[in-house]
């Protein structure tokens, strides 16, 4: 039944489309390949860890088990332990017995998927621009056919999803390869690849889904994988906490996503992108604003924006390649993708778009400022990610969907590189500390310093990435960030956003303010990135005498992907060169995405193409470059790595530094203001108060059973055994009966 309907649905949908006969018809294999990897790796993992219990687990609880020694041996050999490379348990390094197979499967499916993605990309290029004005939709089966609600399991291929697919499979493949080295000694090696494969599968579902619900599958699926991978070394409570926090915070966002879907369905009866796009203009302005705001709530969760950003820094508890793939390059950008995908909705609601811009700008500056005082190398990068995501939202919020996506792509390159580079560093540090049985923190920059000597490749690549993120021309980040800031400035001059009001404030003022905030954040970005580079790689080494001997470059399987990402970080800007800097083909990405977002962009700009005088253009570019340079210089001048002491000798920060180091105490505020009250109210008021107190005691015990018991007690007191009493009761009864007879 399934194959038949499969073919049928597919034919009905795809027969007329130019991509129907091309490699694109295999697009269903994109998520299926990693899914297959997940299944195999998962099976390897669980099979290797599983020891069947006794047939009668309840019998004689102490004798029925295999001998302790036997089982212990089994565990240390090849069990899924949650200790992992990260813990301080100094386990005996034994590679997993299926490590070889997992190495082939895990990255292997990614290579295949990337190959397929490239082939599909080629097919799309071959099909020509004109042919691709409608997306290529494949329907596989009816997923939720209920009444007039019809949700199909369908994928959609268009220019936007193609970009995302390439980033996900490409960067994903590199990170898988990197992981082979990074995770080589982990006892749960296949489990790691299972999760990672599953993540890619869900991420592809997210970007390929042809409707919001299918996208939501991927949306929550990646959240799940994030949860699993953050808590990968689950025996550490902090890791498990971080995973759970990520999931729950994401769920708050998902709540928004869900409500937005409900509103869409209630108002226009469809949830497919094409259907919504066709009918979006029929929505009332306030409805569309509410829909967009709820969608954006989803984005703040998934993409770690104010107020739901706090999970992302904690998510660094996961293995570093995970941070690179999920918490920098792909998953966290899903929110940006969602808005870009929903451009037909957001462009209809200037208020919602302004909200996106404001939140994006605030997040950018807020997170950047926290990044200034972090010591954990991954935390710096995490706040940097939050901040950069803010930029992307400024972009997509202000209707510069192309710029937003552009920054998403370049950010994927350089942030992945930064994370993987930091991974290399941590790997080296951990190896060194492990060799000397030291319990020092392998991620704290105060324990690093001068690593340039020991890992030059990593240093140079990190330098490139740092320059890219700082917006230093001609690295990738320069172009994308400049495109965003420039667009915001232009939108402030002329757009539907500028005409609108947000909380009573004129839109253009807000946009100008956001532009300034963006510049300030860019300055801070340059500062903290330079700071990270200086503290990590320059100055004297603070790792310790003995450890120094063990520091060194990571194996080629790790540095290789770094190299590729380095190239991309340097050259990524050429994907979408502005017209003002024609050092290659101009506006490639803009042209590519035009069928998807062009119409909406025009709607925001009152139908006019983006036009600015070259004076403004160049001064904007100049401002951006100056800011970046200023940041680097300030950091270079102010920071003194030789004065830094290792973590264990460090003093407490004072004043505002302390506030920054403690991330403005937002976690604590959330805990005190939301989490603890909720738990407290639930426990004391709802459970003990209402459930046990009011319902069980008062209603049931006192009233429900108490009243019959009271009657019983009274009656039983009268039943004294005295005939006299009985006669009295009888006579009283007689009087009552006679009384009742007088009632008419």
């Amino acid at each position: 039944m399934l194959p038949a309907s499969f073919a049928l649905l597919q034919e009905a949908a795809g027969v007329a489309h130019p991509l129907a006969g091309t490699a694109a018809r295999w697009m269903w294999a994109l998520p299926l390949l990693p899914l297959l990897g997940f299944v195999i790796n998962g099976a390897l993992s669980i099979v290797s860890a599983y020891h069947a219990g006794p047939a009668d687990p309840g019998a004689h609880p102490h004798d029925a088990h295999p001998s302790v020694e036997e089982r212990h041996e089994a565990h240390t050999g090849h069990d899924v332990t949650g200790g992992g490379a990260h813990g301080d348990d100094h386990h005996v390094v034994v590679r997993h017995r299926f490590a070889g197979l997992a190495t082939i499967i895990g990255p292997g499916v990614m290579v295949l998927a990337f190959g397929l993605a490239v082939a599909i990309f080629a097919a799309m290029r071959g099909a020509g621009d004109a042919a691709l004005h409608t997306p290529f939709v494949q329907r596989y089966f009816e997923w939720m056919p209920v009444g007039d609600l019809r949700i199909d399991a369908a994928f959609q291929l268009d220019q936007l999803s193609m970009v995302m697919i390439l980033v996900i499979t490409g960067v994903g493949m590199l990170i898988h390869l990197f992981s082979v080295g990074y995770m080589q000694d982990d006892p749960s090696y296949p489990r790691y690849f299972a999760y990672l494969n599953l993540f890619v599968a869900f991420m592809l579902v997210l970007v390929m889904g042809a409707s919001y619900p299918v996208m939501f599958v991927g949306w929550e699926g990646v959240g799940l994988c994030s949860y699993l991978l953050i808590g990968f070394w689950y025996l550490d409570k902090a890791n498990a906490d971080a995973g759970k926090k990520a999931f729950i915070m994401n769920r708050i966002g998902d709540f928004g996503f869900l409500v937005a879907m409900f509103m869409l369905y209630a108002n226009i009866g469809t949830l497919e992108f094409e259907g919504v796009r066709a009918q979006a203009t029929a929505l009332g302005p306030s409805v569309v604003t509410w829909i967009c705001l709820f969608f954006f709530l989803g984005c703040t969760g998934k993409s770690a924006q104010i107020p739901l950003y706090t999970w992302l820094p904690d998510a660094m508890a996961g293995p570093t390649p995970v941070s690179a793939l999920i918490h920098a390059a792909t998953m966290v950008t899903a929110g940006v993708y969602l808005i870009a995908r929903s451009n037909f909705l957001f462009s209809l609601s200037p208020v919602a778009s302004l909200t996106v811009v404001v939140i994006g700008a605030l997040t950018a500056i807020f997170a950047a400022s926290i990044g200034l005082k972090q010591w954990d190398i991954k935390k710096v990068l995490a706040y940097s990610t939050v901040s950069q995501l803010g930029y992307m939202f400024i972009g997509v919020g202000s209707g510069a969907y192309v710029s937003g996506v552009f920054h998403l792509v370049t950010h994927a390159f350089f942030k992945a590189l930064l994370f993987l580079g930091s991974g290399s560093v941590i790997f080296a540090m951990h190896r060194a500390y492990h060799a000397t049985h030291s319990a020092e923190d392998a991620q704290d920059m105060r324990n690093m310093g001068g690593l340039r000597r020991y890992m030059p490749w990593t240093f140079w690549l990190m330098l490139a990435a740092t320059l890219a993120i700082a917006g230093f021309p001609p690295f990738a980040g320069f172009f994308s960030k400049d495109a965003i800031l420039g667009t915001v400035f232009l939108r402030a001059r002329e757009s539907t956003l500028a005409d609108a009001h947000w909380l009573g404030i004129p839109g253009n003022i807000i946009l100008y303010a956001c532009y300034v905030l963006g510049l300030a954040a860019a300055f801070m970005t340059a500062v903290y990135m330079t700071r990270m580079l200086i503290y990590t790689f320059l100055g004297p080494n603070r790792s310790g005498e003995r450890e120094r001997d063990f520091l060194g470059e990571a194996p080629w399987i790790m540095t290789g992907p770094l190299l590729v990402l380095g190239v991309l970080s340097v050259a990524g800007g050429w994907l979408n060169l502005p017209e003002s800097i024609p050092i290659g083909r101009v506006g490639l990405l803009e042209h590519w995405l035009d069928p998807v977002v062009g119409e909406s962009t025009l709607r925001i700009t009152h139908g006019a193409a983006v036009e600015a005088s070259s004076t403004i253009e160049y001064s904007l570019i100049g401002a951006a470059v100056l800011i970046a340079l200023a940041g680097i210089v300030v950091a270079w001048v102010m920071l003194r790595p030789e004065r830094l002491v290792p973590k264990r000798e460090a003093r407490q920060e004072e004043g505002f530094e302390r506030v920054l180091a403690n991330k403005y105490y937002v976690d604590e505020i959330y805990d005190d203001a939301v989490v603890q009250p909720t738990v407290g109210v639930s426990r004391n008021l709802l459970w003990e108060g209402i459930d046990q107190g009011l319902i069980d005691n008062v209603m049931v015990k006192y009233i429900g059973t108490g009243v019959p018991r009271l009657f019983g007690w009274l009656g039983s007191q009268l039943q004294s055994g005295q005939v006299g009493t009985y006669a009295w009761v009888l006579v009283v009864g007689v009087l009552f009966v006679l009384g009742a007879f007088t009632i008419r």
Partner: protein
Amino acid sequence: MNGFLTSVGYDRWILPALLGIPLLGALVIWLQAALGGRDAGAAPRAAPEESAAARAGVDPRTAVDEIATGVAGPARVIALATFIVEFIVSLGLWPAFDPADGRWQFPVDIAWIPSWGVRFTIGIDGMALMMILLTTLIMVLASLGSWTYIRTRTHSFYALMLVLTTGMLGVFMSLDLFLFYVMWEVMLVPMYFIIGIWGGENRLYASLKFFIYTMVGSMLMLAAIVYIGLAARNPATGIPTFSYDYILQNVVVSPTAALWLFGAFFMAFAVKVPMFPFHTWLPDAHVEAPTAGSVVLASIMLKLGTFGFLRLAVPLFPSAAMNETVRSIILGLAVIGIVYGALVSMVQTDFKKLVAYSSVSHLGFVMLGIFALTVQSVQGALMVMINHGISTGALFLLIGMIYERRHSRLIEAYGGIARVVPMFAALLTLVSLSSIGLPGTNGFIGEFLVLIGAFKTVPIFTIIATTAVIFAAAYLLWAIQRILFNAFTKPENEHLADLNPRELLIMAPLVVAIIWLGVYPAPVLRRMQLSAERFVTVVQGRATSQSRVVSTGERPR
């Protein structure tokens, strides 16, 4: 397949057979016990009257571990075989059921007590079909899950389980209100015994609470059923009728009476669902019940409440049920239940109790779906019923498995055990995720449909209910973190054994169902489509016609 089934007359005998097979199995168990089976493996001993132990008042049989002595063997084998036969026989319903036929399928109609107009009328529609299949499946798993859990008085236990099955299936099939009531009560007693005899320390309290709560509601329902039966009586002979179809088509009661009657039905079903604030029996019953009891309770018996709303309470008295005030109150209670259940389950220390409160939350979704009255929400409600049966059943089975090993349901007794019981951990995580409603698992489908359908008619309630996706993640993830993850601090857990093949066999169909219903629920939805649509149209139609009759009936005076 269908041809074969028709050739054996499947459509004629299937429903009575489904009711009869468990009874037959119970009879066989009873015979086996009566013919000395109980003593087969026990050490030879004197007649109980004479033995010294008996004289001292010590029962020679209470403390006997019948698994160890081998007495349990035949009982559990017979029970399992019966349940498997039942399940296989019921599977034929899937192909034989015609999703496009809106009438009752596989009907059987026999006079039972003609003097009172009581008939033995059974038949099913799509939602009953799914509930029946769920029941037969869960019973197989529940009996397998009791395989080593129930160690004493196994014959009685399995016989009660079989009788219980008949009762539950009977409720789903009944098309006669009298029969419905009888079946409704029939399932109460076995469950009372199952909790009361094989339950935990506080089992007496819990079982009595369960019984009394249920009975308060059902007795009121009894009075209401008599009232409607009399309202539908044949004017010539004066004999009442309890035929569902007849009553649905012909009986119109005054709005005041409808309100009271609906109230009576509401009490019966709301206790069973259970709706806030009638839910407090549930945590106690769940916690104290043996695994199979909890599983059956959660997977099937709670659904009987919502099934009652769908089948009886709302369609019979739509003017009362859909009265703006009544509906708002019920929706309010449903939404309170959703959020309240989630919040309270967050702070539980006993994992079973946590799952019990989560049931309150999940069943709130069902109520929301029913009373939102759109095709999507009703279908969603039906899906939640199925999904909750699968997911929560699986959760209770898993808890039972770990309880058998460690004899503690307290969350704090565990921690980090994913290291020693990885298969258990993987399954618990998967099942929890499905309970949370992760897309791609069954849980999502139901909740999503309920909410998206309900938003059309009752948006504010729906938005509040949607917040439960957050709390659900909070309580379950927090719980499994404290059980599976975190530091491994309890040395006594070092020797926990992972699941054995039998336990994997129990979980396998549930896992398949979780994924299947999450990815491809369309076949299930198609089969329930007509039921849901008919529910919506009947309720809407009758609500308007009843109010019209009332208005035209009263205005001339």
